[in-house]
């Protein structure tokens, strides 16, 4: 599962209006595989969103495996952006990503300010916290 940040940036950059950007998000959402019903449970739910949002994350070989889903198609489109930014990357990389800056570049900054409704900020904060914790838990390697 890889998402092409350059392509997303180009497509969304070309969508001039807010409506066009929303339409593109719905299209991009089709690329997002649905979570199994078993993972769409309360334990994985991100609370405080006006749509259902579920997330699970774990580390394989120090790289983040991120799985996300929502019952809103616009939010699923946003989740593709989150995956494009963070999935499969190392904790150090994750902490260096300027996600808000990227959204602003795409003309989607509004989704972060209204994020109590869409859960985007809660998800990004959780990813960052997980990355910080992962770095802290990793035994320091001294020579």
């Amino acid at each position, binding site marked *: 599962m890889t998402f092409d940040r350059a392509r997303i940036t180009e497509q969304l950059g070309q969508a001039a*209006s*807010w*409506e066009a950007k*929303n*339409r593109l998000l*719905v299209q991009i959402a089709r690329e997002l595989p649905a979570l199994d019903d078993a993972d769409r449970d309360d334990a994985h739910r991100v609370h405080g969103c*006006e*749509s*259902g949002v579920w997330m699970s994350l774990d580390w394989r070989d120090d790289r983040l495996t991120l799985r996300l889903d929502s*019952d*809103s*198609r*616009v*939010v699923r489109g946003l989740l593709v952006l989150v995956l494009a930014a963070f999935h499969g990357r190392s904790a150090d990389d994750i902490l260096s990503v300027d996600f808000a800056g990227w959204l602003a570049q795409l003309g989607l900054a509004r989704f972060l300010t209204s994020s109590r*409704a*869409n859960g985007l900020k809660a998800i990004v904060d959780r990813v960052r916290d997980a990355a910080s914790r992962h770095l802290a838990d990793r035994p320091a390697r001294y020579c």
Partner: protein
Amino acid sequence: MSPPVPLSPAFDVAALREQFPLLCAQPALVYLDNAATTHKPRAVLDAERRFYETSNANVHRSVHRLAHAATDAFENARSTIARFLNAHDAREIVFTRGTTEAINLVAQSWGRSQLHAGDEIILTMLEHHANIVPWQMLAAERGLTLRVVELQPDGSLDLAQFRQLMGSRTRLLAVTALSNAIGTRPPLREMIDTAHRHGARVLVDAAQAMAHDIIDVQDLDADFLVFSGHKVFGPTGIGALWARGDLLAGMPPWQGGGEMIERVSFSGTTYQAPPYRFEAGTPPMAQAVGLAAALDWLGALDRPALAAYEDMLRATLEHGLAALPGVRVVGTAPGKGPLVSAAFEQAHPFDVAQFLDARDIAVRVGTHCAQPLMETLQLPGTLRISLCAYNTVTEVEALLSALADTLEWLQ
């Protein structure tokens, strides 16, 4: 359903809209989220500005001329609110930050002093979290039992079940006058009579009703009534509790500080009479003046004509929604308020609202701070279209056409 009959133009909405600076400055905006908060007419903005420009000082404290002017303005605002609600006496009005704080005041002051383990409070399935959580907190502290009036399929309350819930341990009925989620107006008079016959008190949450209904607390015969200024064309940060004078007189203070005391010494403190006993600290003075201006403004309109106009808008909207495939109106109780909740077969309400926003149409999605209600209806949430005095048929038509487009391509 036959189409609603357009009214004769008894109600001049164009002239009314001109009084709202935000609506004038943003003519393309279609604002249909009035249950969340309404916009403010110029009269309200002017009143607040005038207070700061001519009368600003702290109330009730100093002897200087300006302090008198401020105190007069603040106490006149209290009298205006009392008049608007047809309260017996201005001292029955306690200023609060809004509905939420007013309910917490009643729970913390009246509830903690009057209710005991085993006592029961009746709420309804329609309540906003603001009229649930303060009672849950009190119930947990005091060992009270909460009982809930259930819904009929159309979203009206099950009154037979309500009567069964009433018993010798029932001490309070806390009920909304107009549901912010599905628009139901419970039959308040009848419910209040029933509660009183069982010796229970009644708190009415008028947060939504204030902008639409004529509220007369003596006629209603409730015991407590609460509302927020910002939902009735007034400022944020101000609202009020009306409580019957004899009840208020027996209620202990709930917050301590300045303004609410008669005499303070370290061996003991005596408290002011109501309403000051419940208004600790410097109150939101300019906001109180703004709220009074809002009620004066609303009170000067032809209220029955306004109510008929709002109901015509609601009927036009529901008629249009019925013609759209895959749309269901949630809550069809007779006599409902000008607020329509919709659910969609194919689309998530959040996505629909997102596309409406792209056309500058403002609606609300979600559970509307009424999660127990949404769970009962087995809905993840709805899209809520809430109307008020300044909305127009053109706006309702713009919404319906944008909704038709959106649903077609979101399929």
